[in-house]
């Protein structure tokens, strides 16, 4: 689904990535972890063609990004949905128009069909139909995330990129959002790439993950595989009561 090989990223003299490689399979929820400044967001931006890596190869859905043409790139962009950290909803459009905008631009659907689709997306993310008429500035933080997720789903993507979906949400809202992601994966069969440092999400929804530290991937795999790593960052990141509990539950029984 996604293959990242030996990616090097430099901004001026600052090295962000020095040989990052990872591999994401179809249908999984894949987490990208790492401390602030470890280049998680930069890596995601490289995957969605907002930035180009200094060196290395990235292939999304079998298409290598280094040699991609304009038409191919446009086609690829319609196969994924991106949820930005702060929603990035268009502030001059209503929520419904935000969801509709790509459908209007890229499909030949009738008005009525588009309307039905917008409503179905609002239902999927658990928002009331009346929310569609509101503007982004009128929504709470949690609702903005849901609305932005509905927009990301508008083109029925195969691939979903989520940049810190639970940051800024209260614990209950965050767990509900996690549940929503799992539900949508079951319903739509999408592959989900999620940047997070929410340990709850890491333990509950993520199937496999990679940990970025020291400018490269220091551990990749399921949570059990990650926990065997002895890298200082992994140890520090996971060394808390939560992990202790998990370890006890899963290894001493």
């Amino acid at each position, binding site marked *: 689904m996604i293959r990242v090989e030996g990616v090097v990223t430099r901004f001026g003299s600052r090295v962000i990535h020095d040989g990052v490689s990872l591999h994401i399979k179809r249908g999984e929820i894949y987490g990208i972890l790492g401390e602030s400044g470890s280049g998680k967001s930069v890596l995601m931006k490289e995957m969605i063609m907002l930035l180009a890596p200094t060196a290395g190869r990235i292939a999304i859905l079998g298409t290598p990004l280094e040699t991609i043409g304009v038409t191919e790139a446009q086609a690829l962009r319609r196969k994924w949905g991106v949820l930005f950290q702060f929603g990035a909803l268009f502030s001059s459009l209503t929520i419904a128009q935000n969801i509709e905008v790509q459908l209007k631009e890229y499909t*030949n659907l009738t008005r009525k069909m588009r309307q*039905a689709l917008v409503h179905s997306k609002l239902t*999927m993310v658990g928002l009331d139909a009346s929310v569609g008429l509101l503007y982004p500035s009128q929504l709470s933080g949690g609702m903005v995330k849901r609305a932005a997720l509905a927009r990301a789903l508008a083109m029925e993507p195969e691939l979903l990129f989520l940049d810190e979906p639970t940051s800024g949400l209260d614990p209950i809202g965050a767990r509900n959002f996690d549940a929503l992601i799992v539900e949508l994966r*079951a319903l739509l069969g999408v592959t989900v790439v999620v940047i997070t440092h929410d340990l709850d999400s890491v333990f509950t929804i993520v199937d496999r993950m990679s940990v970025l530290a020291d400018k490269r991937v220091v551990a990749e795999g399921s949570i059990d595989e990650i926990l065997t790593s002895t890298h200082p960052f992994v140890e520090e990141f996971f060394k808390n009561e939560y992990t202790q509990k998990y370890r006890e539950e899963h290894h001493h029984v």
Partner: protein
Amino acid sequence: MKCIFLTYTITNDRLALHSQGEWRLHTVRQVAQELEHLPRASDITWDFSGLEGFDSAGVLLFIDTLKRLEEGATVHIVGYTPQQEAMYQLLHQTDTTSPIEPPREGVVMRMGVEGVALYQLWRDFFTFLGHLVMAWVQTLRHPRNFRFKEIVYHIHRSGLNALLITGLSAFLVGLVIAYQSGVQLEKFGADLFIVDTVGISITRELAPMITAIVIAGRSGSAYTAEIGAMKITEEIAAMRTMGFDPYYFLVIPRIVALMVALPLLIFFADMMGIVGGMVASKLQLGISMGQFVDRLSEVLEVKHYLLGMIKGPVFAFLIAMIGCFRGLQVAHNTESIGLHTTASVVNGIFLVIAFDALFSVLYTELGL
């Protein structure tokens, strides 16, 4: 009919439907067309086992069609996957009919909304003026807290950095004025009067106005955008909670700075405008620089220069005040910054021209 997404067989009022292909976003329009031409039957069996792919658009189309078919027939659905059923369960209760666009407002409604907005704008403006006066009183009471550093910073930005553009504008205006009047004056043999024309019109009218208009576009818009951005990122709210009055910290320094900077810029524009006139006179009428300066010192009374200069602080106050007011009006979204910045420049330039006219009337009435 050639069908890609559907095949059917019909035997005595029994219709057997087979869905096939991909029912997705980019195909549903075609699928819908094929579904419209189904023959009538009272007993329908709809088989989905041949479906290669689907998404919510496909499921929505199915829900829609099913409703239509069930009106005149019994429908049996077979061959669906659990995933299709899950999506059907989720979506078949979705209210798809309520509008997604806000209802259009009528003329009366819009007039009302505009009227209320206008009333609120003026009310906000007077509130702003009230706060401004309060902040001034505060400043005069505790002059030691006066934000000199900010003021100097803003003088540098709005004044010094604008020297080139205001100077160039005034130079060109002087050039144009001299050229245009030169042609006319030459006809009467009154070549030397070009000096009077340029000297008086530049110092008394044109330099102050041109400078003010350039500054309204340059600094007025900047003030609005800066303060507006601070409003959106809640910096102004943060300042308030710390007890930093935004009028005292943001508005007054900008206004004072521009009131100092604009007269200085006008002085520079006066000189550049006259130089422009001088160059054009030399080129067109052959009046030497020496002649020009001699004549200028004879005819250009100090009062013209002063009358032009007095306008400086007034224009500066208007521009900076509107810029800050519009900045504080920014609300919620990024679009609002653009709207208010435009409004700030338009209001600023209009006020400058309106007050210039007012000054003209005033000076004439006073016999100056």
